[in-house]
């Protein structure tokens, strides 16, 4: 089992949707929220996701397809 940490940014049109619940149902991953700030216009969540690496990658792919911006917890690492 693998644990990876992510920073996710939700656009306004996705804020009200239970997307983290969805990924726990669609994929064999356990999302564990550690810090978040959600308003009616946007929001971010920092979480740990536990599962097989392939399942985590499928979950991340699904989130990105739904318009969620998914970065590693460190956000942008690649610097100029």
């Amino acid at each position, binding site marked *: 089992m693998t644990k990876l940490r992510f920073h996710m*940014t939700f656009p306004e049109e996705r804020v009200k949707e239970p997307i983290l619940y969805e990924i726990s149902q669609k994929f064999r991953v356990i999302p564990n929220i550690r810090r978040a700030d959600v308003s009616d216009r946007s929001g971010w969540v920092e979480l740990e996701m536990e599962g097989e690496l392939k399942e985590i990658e499928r979950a991340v792919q699904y989130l990105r397809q739904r318009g969620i911006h998914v970065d590693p917890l460190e956000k*942008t*690492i690649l610097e100029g």
Partner: protein
Amino acid sequence: MNNPSASPQPSPEGKKGLSLMKGLKCRECGRIYDLAAIHVCDFCFGPLEVDYDYEAIGKILSRGEIEKGPNSLWRYKYLLPIKEEPTIGLHAGMTPLVRADRLGKALGLKNLYIKNDTVNHPTLSFKDRVVAVAINRARELGFRTVACASTGNLANSVSAHAASAGMDCYVFIPHDLEAGKVLGNLIYRPTVVSVKGNYDDVNRLCSEIGAEYPWAFVNINIRPYYAEGSKTMAFETAEQLGWRVPDQVVVPIASGSLLTKIWKGFQEFSSLGLVKRHPELRVNGAQAEGCSPVYQAFAAGRTQFIPVKPKTIAKSLAIGNPADGYYALDVIGKSRGQVEAASDPEIVNGMVLLAETEGIFAETAGGVTVACLKKRAEKGAIRPDDLTVAYITGNGLKTMEALTGYLPEPVGIDPNLASFQKIVHPS
């Protein structure tokens, strides 16, 4: 994959020397951690920052003590996160603070200075400050390998410092990076890893490698120490101004770390009594329009960011989801500063203006700073008499391609005096 909370630690620390750090402290929940190669609070995932013993520092640090120190950033070693005397990057810092009368005249400012890190040692950008600190701390922690993900200045600096330290070095780049930028790193003989993927893929991979390998990844597990090097920009400014804090500063924003650390540097000097407290200091941020998440959040009055896909010639500022963006916004708000954004043509105009008035050839990030300084001055937000410092963070020789098509062609003449007199210098 390891649990990131058990981030690789190569060996215990050596003997204590300077030892003025108390620990690492979570910026969100305040939990204290050992001085290890960790960067995130296990409990709340907040970023960790070095916590110093200011009482002890206050007993040994004075203006005189600093003035007796080396002509480098290490004159401020008691406020930097090292435990032993530095051995690498001994010439970084103490770059010129240039009184910019000609640029000031063009902008209507009578008291303008340029902090000129285009001549920082050894790789001509402010990154030499943060990397010098990071590499020394990495060696103290027992690391033999350093790493970073970078398309430019950071990779140059990590590669050069690793070479001089005799450490192994890995630099991660996207596979489609221009050849010229790769060569600038290869000369130092690091292992340059070209990742077949986009920028997001490189970020993700480096995060995983940072958690898996016993390497000092300068802006991941060493980040709390690395970032502290930026404070020296403020320390030097204050000392070079005759132990004063400016009224206004203009700082380019990439990750947001430089801006927050410049603020922290002035605060530390003030609280230690090295400079007079200056409640009017305004910290202004500068971003490129093509990558301006902090500017956009500030303009909309939000504290939340919407990550962006960078599209700007200012590559060294192209950070779409800045790690310290929230904290940069906080400092700008607290200091009653502002954020401006500059378009690509404005960036080039800023580079040209700085070069033609002060003889300083800055990279594109410097163009961003000058363009945003100009906007602040035109709006009257910086008053003519304000003691103002603009931070120029890298050398223009690194971003020559940005000028293609913007500058006039040379004047062509035949090889004879008549042609010269006819075309160049008619009487």
